[in-house]
């Protein structure tokens, strides 16, 4: 039952992801991205990964999409830009579609060789925390280093060059 729900929600996420990457309007693409992430969260929940589902909603659908919305607010969405996007997409879809089919083909037609039935035991957040701060402590430190490098990089890229020259 719960894995059926997981497959259903995953299929929903796949459809809305396909809609999200083909919309010519940036706001519509973002809204479909939110739908994709929420459907994925339902899928994670059905798979017994409640902690991951909550993190997905909080960080992906909360923080990351808000970043996108801030950038879209600075973007002029004119009808000309939308028609230009649509024309570009109409010209350039066949080769990328072929690439995507080649990526998914071994998964859809290949043999996984999985016959055993695992017990769907939900993984609790306690176990994840024990893993992350026990054997994986080095990976967590590396992730924090990555975030620090991203922070410094964004601060450097986003600095305003004109203020020192104008003397203020």
């Amino acid at each position: 039952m719960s894995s059926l729900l997981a497959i259903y929600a995953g299929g929903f996420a796949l459809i809305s992801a396909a809609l999200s990457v083909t919309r010519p309007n940036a706001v519509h693409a973002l809204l479909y991205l939110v739908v994709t992430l929420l459907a994925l969260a339902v899928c994670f929940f059905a798979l017994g990964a409640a902690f991951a589902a909550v993190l997905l909603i909080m960080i992906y659908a909360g923080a990351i999409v808000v970043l996108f919305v801030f950038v879209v607010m600075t973007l002029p969405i004119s009808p000309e830009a939308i028609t230009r996007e649509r024309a570009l997409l109409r010209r350039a879809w066949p080769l990328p579609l072929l690439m995507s089919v080649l990526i998914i083909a071994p998964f859809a037609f290949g043999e996984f060789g999985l016959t055993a039935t695992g017990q769907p035991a939900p993984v609790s957040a306690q176990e994840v925390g024990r893993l992350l701060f026990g054997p994986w402590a080095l990976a967590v430190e590396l992730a924090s280093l990555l975030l620090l490098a991203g922070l410094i990089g964004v601060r450097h890229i986003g600095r305003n060059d004109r203020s020192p020259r104008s003397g203020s």
Partner: protein
Amino acid sequence: MTGSDLIGIMILAAGLFAVGVFGVLARRGMLFQLVALEVALSGPALGFIAAGAYHADPEGQGMFILVLTLAAAEVAVGLALFLRLRRITGTDDSDAISGLKG
């Protein structure tokens, strides 16, 4: 959860990744490419979670948290680069800035 359920979810994960790759290749607007990159990253995340649930192992969710960190850093740097390039070149077409001549 049986093996065939895991295969179905893995096909969905590969489909999400393939849709993201399609978006990155087919779109030229940088913002749309970043959205497609998010979709592409969510595919492996679903794969990790499904494998972790199948084996009742917390390492799947641990990898998901690392993927989440990567996605957050990638989006921050990508959006900062997008704003910067749009201020310099006045366009959001990723083909227009392929020369990197400064």
